[in-house]
């Protein structure tokens, strides 16, 4: 029993790191652009499919493939932002951007269905099935790799945000868009690049997800986006560090519940969110005003 619990905790922490990365992308986009990118789930799936294509058709190793998929997703993100999000203005901007993201997600999902059908596929490499034996636990290699990638990506994100001029511009925009404009920050450019970064991390998440999940289809995006949203909302919009902690917390809780009640594990995920939000509407680490818009 102890080892089962330990196992669950370990899997929770490692898996949580990956979810945290994808959630970080989401919360970053929210913080800078003030929009909820509900297409993040399908982006992850898209990233997974890209890795799949590279792996199966070009026989490229999954990790090496990342060098292609990450920039590719970055570009896709920037393009989508420029074409579909940037032109939206006006009183209903928050709802419209949300729906625009939904629409984009729908289109991508349809295209993926057309291309790949609804069969389950998964990503495979020598390390997706191997595991490391540590004390009493078996830690799947891919989980460790995933966590490692997430750590690297988080590190890179931190460096960008806190050690570059661009990062400073991003943080300024997050705090006050109008003021940022006034001091000469090109908010459009910052927004576009941020959206691109938020999308690029899904390439990594996608690859890991594709390898861990044991099979995915375009339909998997719903499960993904709902978890990511739950994590981000619970953490409090705009808090990247909070997203990390919350993601790990949620996945660990789910992994633990899974030991006893596998059917209900996922529900617990959402229930936890709802319950916590009832008492702390701004989220655990939220810094925004509580008042309804």
């Amino acid at each position, binding site marked *: 029993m102890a080892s089962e619990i330990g196992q669950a905790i370990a899997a929770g922490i490692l898996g949580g790191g990956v979810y945290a990365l994808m959630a970080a992308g989401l919360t970053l986009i929210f913080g800078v652009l003030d929009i*909820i990118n509900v297409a993040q789930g399908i982006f992850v799936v898209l990233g997974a499919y890209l890795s799949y294509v590279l792996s199966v058709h070009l026989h490229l190793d999954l990790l090496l493939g990342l060098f292609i998929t990450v920039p590719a997703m970055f570009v896709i993100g920037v393009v989508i932002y420029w074409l579909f999000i940037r032109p939206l203005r006006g009183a209903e901007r928050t*709802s419209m951007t949300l729906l625009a993201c939904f*629409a984009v997600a729908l*289109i991508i999902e349809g295209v993926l269905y057309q291309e790949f059908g609804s069969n389950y596929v998964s990503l495979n490499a020598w390390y997706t099935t191997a595991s490391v034996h540590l004390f009493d636990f078996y830690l799947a290699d891919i989980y460790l790799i995933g966590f490692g990638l997430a750590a690297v990506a988080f590190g890179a994100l931190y460096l960008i945000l806190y050690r570059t001029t661009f990062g400073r511009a991003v943080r300024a925009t997050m705090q006050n868009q109008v003021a940022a404009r006034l001091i000469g920050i090109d908010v459009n450019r910052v927004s576009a690049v941020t959206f691109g970064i938020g999308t690029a991390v899904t390439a990594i998440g996608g690859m890991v997800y594709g390898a861990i999940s044991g099979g995915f289809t375009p339909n998997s995006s719903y499960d993904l986006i709902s978890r990511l949203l739950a994590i981000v*909302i619970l953490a409090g919009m705009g808090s990247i560090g909070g997203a990390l902690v919350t993601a790990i917390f949620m996945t660990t809780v789910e992994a633990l519940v899974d030991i006893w009640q596998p059917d209900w594990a*996922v529900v617990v995920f*959402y229930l936890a969110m709802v319950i916590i939000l009832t008492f702390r509407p701004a989220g655990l680490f939220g810094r925004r005003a*509580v*008042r309804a818009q």
Partner: protein
Amino acid sequence: MTSDRAAGKAPAGDQKVTPNPATTAPAPVTVPAGTRHAWPLRSRSLSVTGVAVLIAAIAVFPLVFTNPTATNFGVITLIFVAVASAWNMFSGFSGYLSLGHAVFYGTGAYFLVVAAKDWNLNGADVFWLLPLAGAVAALIAVPLGLVALRVRRHTFVVITIAFFFIAQLSASNLTVTGGSSGVLAPIPNWAGATFNNPFYYLAMLLAAAAVVISVLIRRSVFGLQLRAIRDDEDRAAGLGVRAMPVKLAALVLSAFFTGMAGALWVYFIGQAVPQFVFDPLFDLAVVLMAFFGGLGTIAGPVLGALILEPTQLYLNLQESNSYESEILFGALFLVVILFLPRGVLPTAGEWLTTGRIQRLRGDWQAWRARRTANRPVPPAAGNLS
């Protein structure tokens, strides 16, 4: 009050504008021609005859088009008219976009099938369960609303999504809802060529009721407060509007109709299965319909549903898979959002209304110029000193 007397007493020289004589008599506010109004406010432009014709057309539709596929489309479309109107009743007026209305739809649906099974109801008797199903949905809207309506709009949308998934997953796991294989609806004890007709007319009644209630809300102080909340909730609160009760009431009403629609639907299609009852695309379709027709208007969701739902059904019929309809809908959605943000119909309506006014003035040139310029010009502001 003294301010009124003060206003009355003010010598003519003080006022820089001539007081409008119409204001000393009760209300009807005179509207100068050419003043730009939002299309929904003067929905009298959708003349009474036009609406009557529409209702008549809908009423005789199944008698004229007896083909079961056609009436099939009719039933589902009318159900969506009801659902879209109900959704708009809450989300359109308050500005809180709900992506979880499927929860109410599904609750109504499951209530009907489970109650019909437990209470051994058959045939036409099952229809008596409809208002009950609505009531159950309305009841669960209360705790859901109390939790979800305390947060800002972004978070609200996400919470509704979370509720949706909780509902879907619960339905898949609970025994009372039959788990993932679902529950069968009772089999109606009528059949034949006119099988669809009772469903059709009930759906029509439901849609009509939803629209009527929407109109009543819009004309009431309650509706005014809702719309004020949409524009600036904090300001409204500071003026004495009690936001939570108002929002909650709208949600409960909305849930009531949505629940009934779900119950009617499940009886029609015969089975309640979690993935179909709680379909993630359900709310998206409803939102698109409302947006398409014009968010927050009365006619908008109705016309949006009347146009989009048959289209979707037709596409599903044509393609062996529904993926092309997904792409199409997504693209359509983007087009509407990017180019016609107030909805197709208000924009078209605006062209029509200004067209009419200009024609009345006999000024064809201006009308043509307006049509190509695509936007009517707002009146010169500041006729004050």
